[in-house]
Every structure is written in structure tokens, then in C-alpha cells.
């Protein structure tokens, strides 16, 4: 029983991480038709920024942790917005080129990170409570999982509120459905593009700080390793569907944890699940039909 609880909670915790990355990917693809390969780099930069701030303020203090989260979100948002403004926007309506540009950016940025910080992981610490565990129905659950889940839930709530209550949210929801008609109503969707990139980048940056706590290190490859899973989750959930990304994150991560525990090849199971879903239902669990 305690094993099941542990697997479930750690699974949901991992799913929360996936969601933080996948939410941005899903919105960006849904609105703009761009598969953003550079998303992992937003996460990595957020992680490094958070770590720098935490070291400045105090790595084991909660203030340090909170400020690190803030720094990660801000850096992620900024870099993402810049990426959209300088690179993606120039290739308006040319989807293949947009994907290629994000690929190039991801390759170049990871190399740059390696140059600046070195290719090896740097182990980090955080508030002591995060490293200890809490007993839950007989299972000893690491506390950082709870924090990740809480933050991801807050981000999900925040994005939903944003989408439902603000004008940009309205534009984005409409644009995901029918971008051409939104422009035919006199609305400049390009600003919404930057907003969506920034929101996705902020979530990824947050994910970076949390991932560095979860795995215990920062490294130039942190984003890349999570990005593959985020892609899988986004596609399984349905490109463009936030709810789909949320559901798929949890399902995929729990499955991965369980498979890893009993068999050891969780990654393989996830990948094969993607293939199966795509063949049975190409638009994903909750997505619209493919563009």
C-alpha cells in the first residue's frame, strides 16, 4: 500500500514538472502552430537564474527559494518573449522555418550554456525541509514533491484564470480555434503570440527551478532531458489543449514511475505509449484535429 502511495505521489510530482513545461508548448503550438524546440533552454536558464539568486540570498532559506522561483519565472518569460520577437516573428506563417529556427536556437543555447557553466551537473541544495520526507499513509514521500505539485496546480489555475478573465486570454482562446478570423476582427494576433511565449517561458522557468530541486542539480542539459517528455505529454494530451496537457502529464508520469519501479524501463513505456496514442487517435486525447 505504501508503495502504491509513494509511486502515485512521486508520479504526480513528476507529472507536475512535465506540466510546467508542456503547458507552454501546448499553448504555443495551439495558437501559433510552432513546435518550440527551444523551450528546454527557457527551463535551463530559469534553473540557473534561480540557483544564482538562491546562492545570493541563502540556499537553505525559504526566502532564497521563493526568490529563486520568482527569478526563474521572470528570466524564463523574458528570454521566451525575446525569442518570439527576434526570431519567430520574422518567420510569420512559415511553420517549418519556425520549427527550424527553434531547433537551431536550442542547439546553440545548450552549447553556450556548456561554455559558460561547463557540461557537468552542479549539485545544489535547498531548504532543509525539501530534502526530508513526510509520512503519508505509510509511505515516506519526499517533501519537494508536494511543493512541485502545489506550484504546478497554482500555475494551472493562474493560466486558466488568465485565459478566461482577460482580453488577451480571450484572444488566445479564439486564436487557437481560428487565427484567421481573429485577425479578420481587427485584432493583431502577433501581440498575443508574444504573450503566449512569455507565459510559456515563465512556466518553464518555474519548472527549471523546481526541477533542479527535484533532481538535485543544475546542468546545461536539464531542459533538454525534460523537453522530450514534455513533447510526448503535449502530443498525447492534444496539441493546443491545456486540459489535455494537464491530464496527460499526470497519466504519463505515473505510468512512467510504475513501469520504472516494476520493470525498470519506464522511459520506453512512455515512448511506446506516444506511438500508440498517435496511431489510434492522431489528435491526442483532447486535441482538435491536426492542422
Amino acid at each position, binding site marked *: 500500500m505504501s508503495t502504491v502511495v509513494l509511486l502515485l505521489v512521486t508520479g504526480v510530482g513528476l507529472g507536475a514538472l512535465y506540466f510546467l513545461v508542456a503547458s507552454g508548448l501546448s499553448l504555443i503550438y495551439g495558437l501559433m502552430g510552432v513546435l518550440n524546440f527551444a523551450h528546454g533552454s527557457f527551463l535551463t536558464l530559469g534553473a540557473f537564474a534561480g540557483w544564482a539568486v538562491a546562492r545570493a540570498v541563502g540556499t537553505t532559506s525559504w526566502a532564497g527559494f521563493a526568490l529563486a522561483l520568482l527569478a526563474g519565472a521572470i528570466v524564463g518569460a523574458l528570454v521566451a518573449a525575446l525569442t518570439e520577437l527576434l526570431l519567430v516573428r520574422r*518567420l510569420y506563417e512559415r511553420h517549418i522555418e519556425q520549427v*527550424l529556427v527553434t531547433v*537551431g536556437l536550442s542547439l*546553440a543555447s*545548450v552549447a553556450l550554456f556548456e561554455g*559558460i557553466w561547463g557540461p557537468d551537473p552542479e549539485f545544489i541544495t535547498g531548504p532543509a525541509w525539501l530534502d526530508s520526507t513526510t509520512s503519508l499513509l505509510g509511505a515516506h514521500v519526499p517533501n519537494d514533491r508536494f511543493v512541485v505539485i502545489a506550484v504546478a496546480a497554482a500555475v494551472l489555475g493562474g493560466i486558466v484564470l488568465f485565459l478566461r478573465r482577460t482580453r488577451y486570454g480571450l484572444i488566445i482562446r479564439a486564436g487557437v480555434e481560428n487565427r484567421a478570423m481573429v485577425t479578420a476582427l481587427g485584432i493583431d494576433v502577433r501581440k498575443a503570440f508574444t504573450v503566449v511565449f512569455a507565459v510559456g517561458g515563465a512556466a518553464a522557468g518555474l519548472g527549471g527551478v523546481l526541477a533542479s530541486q527535484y533532481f538535485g542539480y543544475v546542468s546545461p542539459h536539464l531542459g533538454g532531458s525534460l523537453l*522530450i517528455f514534455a513533447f510526448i505529454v503535449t502530443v498525447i494530451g492534444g496539441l493546443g489543449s491545456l486540459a489535455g496537457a494537464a491530464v496527460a502529464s499526470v497519466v504519463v508520469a505515473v505510468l512512467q514511475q510504475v513501469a520504472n519501479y516494476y520493470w525498470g*524501463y519506464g522511459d520506453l513505456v512512455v515512448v511506446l505509449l506516444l506511438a500508440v496514442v498517435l*496511431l489510434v487517435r492522431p489528435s491526442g486525447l483532447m486535441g482538435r484535429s491536426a*492542422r
Partner: protein
Amino acid sequence: MSRPTLTPASAVVTVVVPVVVAVVLACLPLLAIQVPGVLPGPTYTPGTLHVLALCWLVAALALSYHLLFGLAGLMSFGHALYFAAGAYGLAIVLQHTELPLLGAAAVVLVGGVVLAHVIGAISLRVTGISFAMVTLAFAQAGNVLVRRNPGGATGGEEGLALRTDHVPDALVGVLHTRNLYWLALAVLVGTYLVVLWVERSRAGHVAAATRENEVRVRVIGGRPYAVRLLVFVLAATLATVTGMAYLLLQSGAVPRASSADFTLTLLVMVVLGGVGSRWGAIVGAVVYTLLDQRLGELASSDAVAALPAVLRVPLSEPMFLLGTCFVLVVLFLPGGIAGLAQRLARRRAVGPTPERMAA
């Protein structure tokens, strides 16, 4: 769709020039040409031959990717899988059986074709982004398998060394780099011929038409799925052959060969060279490989070490320079090197332009 007639001008370009180039390249090991800064030494030295052989193999791989992406418009993110299947497959067969090289290669080739057929049949049921994701998924699965080292078969993160017991002596050892060079060149020439043949065949024309407008192809009775599967399997098989030659050249296989990153670098090469151009793929691959090899030297040179950190750090990372180059090409030079060359040629000559396939 009519086959383009071979005018005298295009005959020169498509037949004579490649033959001449191939002959010249074959003679390089016997010559002492030096290209300081680009090649580590004169062309008869093993070090230089090794670098060049690597260029030819990567070019062959890029050509096979051109078949997928440039001709059929299939953006696969999992092409590295078949290359790795060739390299690792041959290494494993040689390691665990007593088959001679040719026999082992035949086994791996058949295995590669079967693998490509199965995965292709599944992946091609979807198109566009979904297709890209499925191919990525399968390649990731392969990568995971390789890294996890089930039963010690793949050597895990350290890779698998080549067991040379049944490999002819002529292909082993630094002294015989020359032979490996010729093997690599033969793979490139063979791949080029296959790609040329496919492009000019009826299937090739249907594949190109499918890339542009699938509905129209169906309406006139073509079968997009069957043609795409054919191209997919052919491209994958070419990659498998290249992988096997790679194993011999490098005396080992490494997990990186099966990574998504590796497929992405193939994409970079093909786009840098110019999507849709055979020569573009080759040029892109050679430029990339040379840069990759040589920039490492540049990075650790004294000149760069003396630069302030702001310049030194980016310059010492080859991938950064390549990635930035790639971004710039995508933004400002969409036709790649081949496109640039054509624009320059068109400005000088008023003659007919060679047949060009749009991306």
C-alpha cells in the same frame, strides 16, 4: 509528370561533374594536397584521411535524409535510429557470432530493412507534426535501449567497441586508413547513385508531388502511402549501410549516434546546404563535419584562449557557432548554400536554370 529531358547543360551537371569529382576524391590518398587550417595535414596522412572519410560518411547520411525530407517532405526526427542500427547491429553481430564481415553485414542489412519497414508502416499512418513526433518517439526508444545496456549488449554510455576477429586486416588499423577512406567514398558514391535513381524514377516524382499536394496525387490514382513507405525504407537502409561503415571507420559505436540530437544535426546539415538539393546535402554535411572537427582545434588554440571571456566562450563551442549559423541561414538565406550558388549562377548566365525542387 514528364521526365525532364537531359539537355547538354544538365547532362554535364548531373553526370560528368559527379564522375570527375568522384575520381578526384578517390585519388586524394595518393596526393599530397594541403589545405592549412581546414585539414590537419597533407591528404595522404591517416589523420586527414580519417577526417575526410568521416565527411563522406556523414554526407552519405545527409543524402539519405535528403531523400526523406528534401524529396518526400517527411520531416523525421528519428533518422538516427537506422544509422545506429547499422553501427550497433554490426558491432553486436560481430561480437557475439563468428560470422565473417560480409555475412554479418548482410544480416544487419536485412534486419535494418525489416526495422525500417515496421516502423515506417506505423509512422506513416500519420503526417506532419504527428509523424515527426512518432519518429522521434521510436528513435528515443532506441536511444533508451542503447543507454540502458540490456544484457550488456550495447555497452551503455561507453559505447561498443569493434571486435576485429573476423574483419579483414585491410580494414583494420591506422595503416589501412586509406582503405577505410575508399570504403567511405564508395558508400557516398553508392548512396548518391541510389538517391539520383530514386529522384528520377516514377516513384520519386510521385513522392515529390505528394510533398506538394497529397490530395491531387490521390485524385490521379497515385498511392501516397506506398510511395512514402518505399522512400522511407530506402532512406533508412542507406543510413544503416552508412552506419556499418561508420563502425568500421571509428572502430566502435557510441550512444550519441542514436540520439535525437544527432538527427537534428542532420536536419541542420540539409538545411544549411539547401533543402531539396543533392549537392546541398553533401556540401552541408562536409562543411558541418569539417567545422565540427576543426573548430575544436581552433577553440583550444592560443589565439582564442587570449580573447576576453565574452568572445572566447562562444567561440570555443563549435555547436554554438553552428547553431547560430543555422539560425541565420534560416532567417536570411532560406535556400541554403545551394540556393545561394544558384542565385549567383543565374545572375551570370542567362541559360536555363537546373531543375530545382522548392522546399
